[in-house]
C-alpha cells in the first residue's frame, strides 16, 4: 500500500494554496500603521491526491483542514496558489466549467442533523440534483433515486420521508447518496463519521470503502479521529495552524512519526487498551491563537525538541524518504538524526 510515487498524474493537486481571512481592517488600524488583522487559515499547502486512493487529513480544531477541503470544493476562493484537477487549473475556470467541475468533485459533511434540507423529502433533494445537472432524462429520475438509495443501503420506499424521520446514520447515507448522484470521481469527506456512534460509524465507513471499491472513488478524508484515519487512509497529512507539518504513508506515520507534533498527537490518543495514564500529558499548553501565530515554526513554543533556529525560521517541508515529508528543523541535516518517541 506504499505505491505513492506513481508516474501517473495526480487526480487532484493543490500547489501553495493559501486562504487568508481578513478580520479587522479599518481606518484606525491603518492610521496606526498596523497591517489588517488576518487569519491565515490555510498557509501555503501543497498536496497531491492520486486516483483511487484515500488521503487522510488530520489535525485539531483551527488547523485549517476543513477550510482546505472547502477550497478544493471552491466554496471559498483561495487567496493564492493553484488547484489542478486532472492537470487543469480549476481556478481559471469560467462559470460553466466550474459548474461542470461540481459533478466531478463532491462532499460529505459532518453533521447529520444539518447536512440535509429539513423542508425537502429525500426524493425532492435527490431529484433536484439530477434535474439541475441533467444527469438523466426526466422520466428516469424516479428510478435513479431508487438506485442511489439502494447503493447506500436504504430502501427506495424511504425516499418519500423527510430528514427528521431518519436516524443520524441514515442521514449520512442520504448525504452520501446526494454526493454520488452527480457521479463524481473525487469526494471530500469532512468529518463524515465524527458525529456518529461507534457502531454506526463502522457501518458508514464500510459503506464508503465499498463504494470506493465499486465505483473507483478517490477520497480526501478529513478527520480529527486518528484511529479512523489510520484504518481508511493510504497516506496521511498532519496539519497544524494552517500548514502541513508531516505527510507520509499511513503505516509509516503511525509506526514512526517524525514531527514532534505528530508524535504528541499519537501519544495523546486514548486507546481501548487497559493501561495507566501517563502522568504528564503528551502535549502541554494551549494551542496558540491562529491569528497571532508564533514566528518561525508555529509549533516551537510547545515543542519538546525546540532549538534556537525554530523561533526564527519556518522549516520548509523536506522529503526525508520517498513519499515522506516533514517540516521540522530536526531533519535539516542531510543525514537526519531521526528523533522518534516511543509509542507508549
Amino acid at each position, binding site marked *: 500500500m506504499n505505491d505513492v510515487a506513481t508516474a501517473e498524474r495526480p487526480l487532484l493537486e493543490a500547489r501553495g494554496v493559501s486562504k487568508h481571512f481578513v478580520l479587522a481592517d479599518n481606518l484606525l488600524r491603518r492610521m496606526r500603521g498596523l497591517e489588517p488583522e488576518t487569519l491565515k487559515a490555510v498557509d501555503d499547502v501543497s498536496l497531491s491526491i492520486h486516483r483511487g486512493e484515500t488521503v487522510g487529513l488530520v489535525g485539531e480544531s483551527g488547523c485549517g483542514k476543513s477550510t482546505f477541503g472547502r477550497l478544493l470544493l471552491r*466554496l471559498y476562493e483561495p487567496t493564492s496558489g493553484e488547484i489542478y484537477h486532472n492537470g487543469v487549473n480549476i481556478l481559471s475556470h469560467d462559470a460553466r466549467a466550474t459548474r461542470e467541475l*461540481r*459533478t466531478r468533485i463532491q462532499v460529505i*459533511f459532518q453533521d447529520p442533523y*444539518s*447536512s440535509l*434540507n429539513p*423542508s425537502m423529502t429525500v426524493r425532492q433533494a435527490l431529484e433536484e440534483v439530477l434535474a*439541475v445537472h441533467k444527469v438523466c432524462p426526466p422520466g428516469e429520475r424516479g428510478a435513479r433515486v431508487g438506485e442511489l438509495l439502494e447503493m447506500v443501503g436504504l430502501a427506495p420506499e424511504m425516499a418519500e420521508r423527510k430528514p427528521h424521520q431518519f436516524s443520524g446514520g441514515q442521514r449520512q447515507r442520504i448525504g452520501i447518496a*446526494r454526493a454520488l448522484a452527480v457521479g463524481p470521481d473525487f469526494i471530500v469527506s469532512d468529518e463524515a463519521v465524527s458525529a456518529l456512534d461507534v457502531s454506526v460509524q463502522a457501518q458508514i465507513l464500510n459503506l464508503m470503502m465499498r463504494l470506493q471499491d465499486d465505483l473507483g472513488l478517490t477520497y480526501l478524508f478529513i478527520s480529527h479521529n486518528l484511529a479512523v484515519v489510520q484504518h481508511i487512509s493510504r497516506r496521511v497529512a498532519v496539519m497544524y495552524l494552517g500548514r502541513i507539518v508531516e505527510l507520509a504513508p499511513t503505516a509509516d506515520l503511525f509506526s514512526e512519526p517524525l514531527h514532534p507534533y505528530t508524535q504528541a498527537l499519537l501519544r495523546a490518543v486514548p486507546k481501548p487498551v487497559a493501561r495507566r495514564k501517563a502522568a504528564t500529558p503528551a502535549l502541554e499548553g494551549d494551542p496558540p491563537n491562529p491569528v497571532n501565530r508564533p514566528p518561525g515554526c508555529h509549533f516551537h513554543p510547545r515543542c519538546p525538541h525546540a532549538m534556537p533556529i525554530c523561533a526564527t525560521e519556518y522549516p520548509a517541508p523536506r522529503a526525508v524518504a520517498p513519499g515522506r515529508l516533514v517540516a521540522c528543523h530536526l531533519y535539516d541535516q542531510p543525514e537526519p538524526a531521526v528523533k522518534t518517541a516511543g509509542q507508549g
Partner: protein
Amino acid sequence: MAVEVADPGAAMVARIAGGTARRRRRRLRNWPLLAGAILLGLVALACLAAPVLANHDPLTQDLLNPAAPPFSPGHLLGTDAPYGRDVLSRLLYAGRIDLLIGFGGTGVTVIVGSFIGLLAGYYGGRIDSVLMRIVDVFFAFPFLVLVLAIVAMLGPSLLNIFIAIWAVSWVSYARIIRGETLVAKKQEYVLAARALGYSDLRVMLRHILPNVFSAALIFSMADAVGNILLGSALGYLGAGVPPPTPEWGSMIADGETFMVTAWWVPTIPGLAIVIVGVALSLLGDGLADLLRPNA
C-alpha cells in the same frame, strides 16, 4: 412467546402514564391555532357574505330612526346616530375594508421584505450594507408618522393607504429574514447545495427561504393586526378611507360623541377590531408552536 417475561418497570409505567386523560389532552395541545383559525374564518366569512347577511344598504340613512338600540325591529345591532344607518350592515361592509387592509398590506410586504432580507443576508458585503442602511433609515421614523405623511401627500383613499403600508412595512421583514438567512447560509445543507453548483437564486429560494420563512409568517400575524389598527387609526384621524364608506375606525370616531347616549355605535366596531386582533394573535401563537422545528 409463551412465557410472560417479568418486567419490574411495568408498574411504574402504568403509574405515570396517566392513561386516556393524557391522550385526550394531547390532541388539543395546539388549541390556539384551531381557535384563532375558526374565529378569523368566521369573521372573514361574515364580511364576505355581507351582501347576503346585511339586510340594509350600509349607506342608506333613516333619519326617522336614529340611534335605535340593538335588537330593534329590522336592526339587529341598532342604528347609528345621527344618520340612522344600520350598524350591522355597516359593520360587515366595513369589515371587508379593514380585513383587506390587514391582509393586503401584509401580503405584499411579507414577500418584498423577505426577498430583500434574503439578498442582504446571502450576499453580505456591500449589498448587505446598502440595503440595511436603507432599512435603518425607515426604522428611524415613527411608523404612524411616516404613513400619515404619505397618505396626506397622496390624499386619503384605500389605494393610498395600501401604498403607504407597502412603502413602510417591508423593513421589518427584511430584518427578520436577513438575520435568519445569516444563520441558515452556514448550515451544511446550504453548503452542500452550493457545492452541487446550484445557482444563487436556487439556493436562496429553494433551500434557504422555506426554512426561514416561518419567522416572517409568525410576525405577519401581528403585523396584520397592526395594519388593521392602522387603517382604523387613520380613519379615526380622518385621514383614512373617505366617508361615507364604512370603516371600523371611522365608525368609532363618528360614534365617539354618542358614547353615553348610544354606546353601541362606537363600541361594536371597537369589539370587532378586538375580536380580529385576538384571532390573529391566537393564530400567530398556534403557528409559532406548529412551525417550531422538531426537537
